[in-house]
């Protein structure tokens, strides 16, 4: 773990797939960079004062450079747009880390699952395990092969399943879960929806799941009014389009523990008994739960365990 910030220089920028580029960074003073274990990420501060996190997807044995992969978001708020359209080799950037939320080692036979740019988080772990003869498996899903980076870096003798949506290929998590022995380690990184599907197919009781969600593509939401019912108290509240579910509950004297109020911290978690929550949080709500500070309902009625 390293929390100091260091000035790195942009050494190279190369296209890696449709709308995805890699950025290679090295020390401005030619020094060795802090070492990292596969699964680690860095915080990158851009010249426009925006800080974003990127997984290291290069060779961990290379002590002089870091490689990250960045996807240009259609609704970029300034991070990926800057990297793709404005960042130039030679630019100095403030970097903090590397840090990791993945375990330092993954057991033999780990199944790595990546969705789109989520490959950047698991690629180095998968390649390490493969090189060490741990027989890992990689399931890698994306929109199309042209939009999936690093396909050419996957060893031919490794167990890899590629699922390109435009070729009608889908990953069948339920089928795989039925075939894998209990206790298999699963490491997944991808969009929130995919990670939730993995968590549902590989229950904690049977598998060791480690999930990392990247912030879902920024989405624009339209608020509509809906009815929420509190099953335990029998209370019903209409949530107006200009208030949050949490706000409506507080108005009706049913305040909830609130932390960030931005769908990041998870402190306001409630159980959903019926109805279809429209998840807007950045954590990725586990099945049957929701975060009422930001999430709403896509059904007209939502019944909560309150």
């Amino acid at each position, binding site marked *: 773990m390293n929390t100091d910030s260091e000035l790195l220089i942009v050494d190279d920028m190369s296209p890696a797939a449709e709308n995805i580029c890699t950025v290679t960074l090295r020390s401005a003073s030619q020094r060795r960079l802090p070492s990292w274990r596969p699964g680690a990420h860095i915080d990158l501060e851009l010249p*426009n004062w925006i800080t974003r996190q990127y997984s290291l997807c290069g060779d961990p044995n290379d002590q002089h450079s870091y490689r990250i992969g960045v996807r240009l978001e259609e609704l970029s708020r300034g991070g990926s747009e800057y990297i793709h359209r404005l960042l130039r080799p030679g630019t100095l950037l403030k970097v903090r880390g590397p840090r990791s939320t993945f375990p330092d080692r993954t057991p033999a036979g780990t199944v790595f699952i990546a969705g789109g740019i989520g490959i950047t988080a698991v690629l180095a772990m998968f390649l390490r395990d493969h090189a060490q003869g741990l027989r890992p498996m990689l399931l890698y899903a994306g929109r199309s092969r042209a939009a999936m980076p690093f396909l050419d870096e996957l060893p031919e003798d490794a167990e890899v399943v590629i699922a390109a949506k435009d070729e009608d290929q889908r990953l069948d998590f339920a089928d795989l879960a039925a075939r894998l022995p209990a206790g298999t380690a699963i490491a997944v990184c991808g969009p929130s929806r995919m990670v939730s599907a993995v968590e549902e197919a590989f229950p904690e009781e049977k598998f060791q799941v480690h999930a990392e969600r990247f912030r879902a593509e920024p989405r624009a939401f339209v608020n509509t009014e809906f009815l929420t019912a509190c099953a335990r108290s029998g209370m019903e509240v209409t949530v107006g389009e200009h208030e949050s579910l949490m706000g409506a509950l507080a108005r009706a004297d049913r305040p909830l523990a609130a932390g960030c109020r931005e769908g990041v911290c998870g402190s306001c978690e409630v159980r959903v008994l019926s109805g279809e929550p429209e998840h807007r949080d950045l954590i990725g709500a586990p099945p049957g739960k929701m975060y009422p500070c930001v999430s709403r309902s896509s059904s007209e009625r939502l019944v909560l365990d309150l």
Partner: protein
Amino acid sequence: MLQNTIARPAPLTHARVRELIGEPDQSAIDKVQDRIDPHIYRFIAHSPFLAIATAHADGTADSSPRGDYPGFVKVLDDQTLAIPDRIGNNRIDTFENLASDPRIGLLFLVPGHRETLRVNGRAYLTEDPNVLTRLEAEGKAPRLAIIVEVEEVFIHCGRAVLRSRLWDQDSTALAEHVPSIGEIVAAQYHREDVTAEAVDEGIESAYKNLY
């Protein structure tokens, strides 16, 4: 009250103005383009501050500042800009003006850069969710945004910034000689309960919430 010691100055005809100033160089005329080229895009992407000029159909004119993260004004395409509306005092002079007259003039500054960027065009307001999402800062999307349809784009020479020593560190000493907003407001109110200190304190705590 300040007394003018000379007579009120007389206005000039435009012909006399031209006679005094002379004609512009052809290069000063040619520098005006009608779209955002890659260099101008880079200028806007690093600008954290701009002044917006608008006018009301009734003839009154107004200029107001906007500031945020560099690049907070998004270039949607080479003839369209989006400017977020962050929280402020809700006076909405700019919006009132745009409702009656869409013409708009923008002046972008980049700290440390001598030249300024001028963009003129027509503007309207939007709450398009895709645009508001792109304008998000510190986790908050603006309530609405100004869309500018670009007509004229040009770089303004750096003499004004050079003469003003605008980016010199030493120049910030000027602020010490200017009254605080509390002093200004307290003097306008003439009320015992409105003190400069109280206003300054209130403003200071309001400034803690910028988004």
